[in-house]
């Protein structure tokens, strides 16, 4: 069933047990993003010190795709240096705009490749990107602070 390419087991796992979904009180930047077309919202805190992402935490409401994707993103980013992290975000964005033609680089994206199927469902791409865009925004803000 087509649906299975969207909702991989990994995604449903992250959805039910999201990682880093509890806002840390310490952060170097905080952002609030919404998906205006469906009303999903996310608050995301990052701490970046000496160019290293030391912490990502978040809270919000959203569909399985947005929740799982944010969980995956947060887990991926922690410990990366900023440049690396932004490269990963780019790689994920690229995967999302691939219209189902790419499977994603597991070396870079790890669990994120489970979201490859989303790229075949245009209405869901924004869901998958919500957390990643929030992270990118926060990371940029943090480096400006």
């Amino acid at each position, binding site marked *: *069933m*087509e*649906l299975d390419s*969207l*909702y991989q087991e990994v995604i*449903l796992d992250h959805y039910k047990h999201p990682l880093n979904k509890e806002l840390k009180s310490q952060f170097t930047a905080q952002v609030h993003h919404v998906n205006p*077309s*469906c*009303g*999903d*919202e996310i608050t995301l805190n990052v701490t970046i010190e000496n160019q290293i992402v030391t912490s990502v935490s978040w809270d919000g*409401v*959203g*569909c*399985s*795709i947005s*929740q799982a994707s944010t969980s995956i993103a947060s887990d991926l980013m922690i410990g990366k240096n900023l440049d690396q992290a932004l490269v990963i975000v780019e790689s994920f964005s690229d995967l999302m705009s691939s219209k189902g033609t790419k499977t994603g680089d597991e070396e870079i994206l790890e669990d994120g490749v489970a979201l490859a199927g989303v790229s075949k*469902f245009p209405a*869901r791409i924004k*869901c998958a990107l919500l957390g990643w865009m929030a992270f990118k925004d926060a990371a940029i803000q943090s480096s400006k602070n």
Partner: protein
Amino acid sequence: MKPMFSPAEIRKDFPIFSKVMRGDNRLVYLDSGATSQKPFQVLDAERKFYETSNAAVHRGAHLLAEEASIAYEGARQVLAYFLNAELDEVIFTKSATESINALAYSFGNSDANSRFSLKPGDRIVVSELEHHANLIPWQQLAKRTGAELAWFSIGSDGRLDQSEIDSLINEKTKIVAITHQSNVLGTIVPLEKIVKHAHSVGAVVVLDACQSAPHFAIDVKTLGVDFLAFSGHKALGPTGIGILWGRSEYLNQMEPFLTGGSMIETATMTEAKWAQSPKRFEAGVPNMAQAIGFAAAINYLNNLGMENVAKHEKDLTAYALDKFKDLDKVKLIGPKDNVDRGSVISFTIEGIHPHDVGQVLDQYGVAVRTGHHCAWPLMRKLGLGGTTRASFYVYNDEADVDVLIHSILKAQKYFKV
């Protein structure tokens, strides 16, 4: 009364129902609240206009221009008759959104001494049920003029709370803008008391009829409202066309909204005098083909009979409400009884986000809407991030409801909730 129609027969008029959907399923279209599907009669009417009479209306002495003008004004007549309105009261816009904005700007453009002008201390009343299209234009008009925005709240049953009507609609109130039927909950707002109250303080009533006019008979003289808006695309008609209806004694006193060609009496570099309604409010070469397609849609509805349309939807809603009672962990949002409620059913499923519900339903060919339905303040009031909404129209039947129910069960199974 006309004999009741058969949805299965009706579907034959709608080419889209031959489409094969995801999972090789037939289309179960339950998203008419967002936009309706179009019968070939509407598509043919538009095409015929382009193929035989296309010209700019009211502007040429040639045969095509004559025919185009007759067709376009004929469409106005169909709409006027549908609403029981006068000919010069029916204005073609591009959508209900434009209609409502047109009114709001028209108020905003009024001279200070006009009865339509707003100033600090004046009040505009809306409700928590409003679609953004009947909220934000008034909110922004209030901002621009310094007027105050006040609103009816709703109870947990999704009904309008009219208990505060005396203090809400007071002598300061100039405009009451309200939805006839909620696009999220299906709630139908009883208007009699609101209209009486508004008129007793000299306020005008603007009705958002987007979810009512396509579904049951509307008579502006009986309703007693002063302005009304709805879109063609939700009433079997083309996209890009809507109606603004207003009392002609008001329209002819009001400032226009869009200015330009065909809406002036005279013009110099520095001054312009406005034509009478409806021209005053129809600047530019109009959306002629869409007006003609819209009239064809209204004729289609008239042939079915609006009483039949209403009865069909009422029965189908009753059937669906009944089926929903048997569902576990599915919560109906909005009126649970079938009184003063239209054929819109919003619900949430425990443990599954509406977007995911919609996705699973799509796999079974079921098209529903998910999210905040452009009524974000209502969602917040209800403490919800969103709902899944099924909305019915003339081409839907009990089998469609059965597929919906079946797909909800599948979604629950898929997400193991």
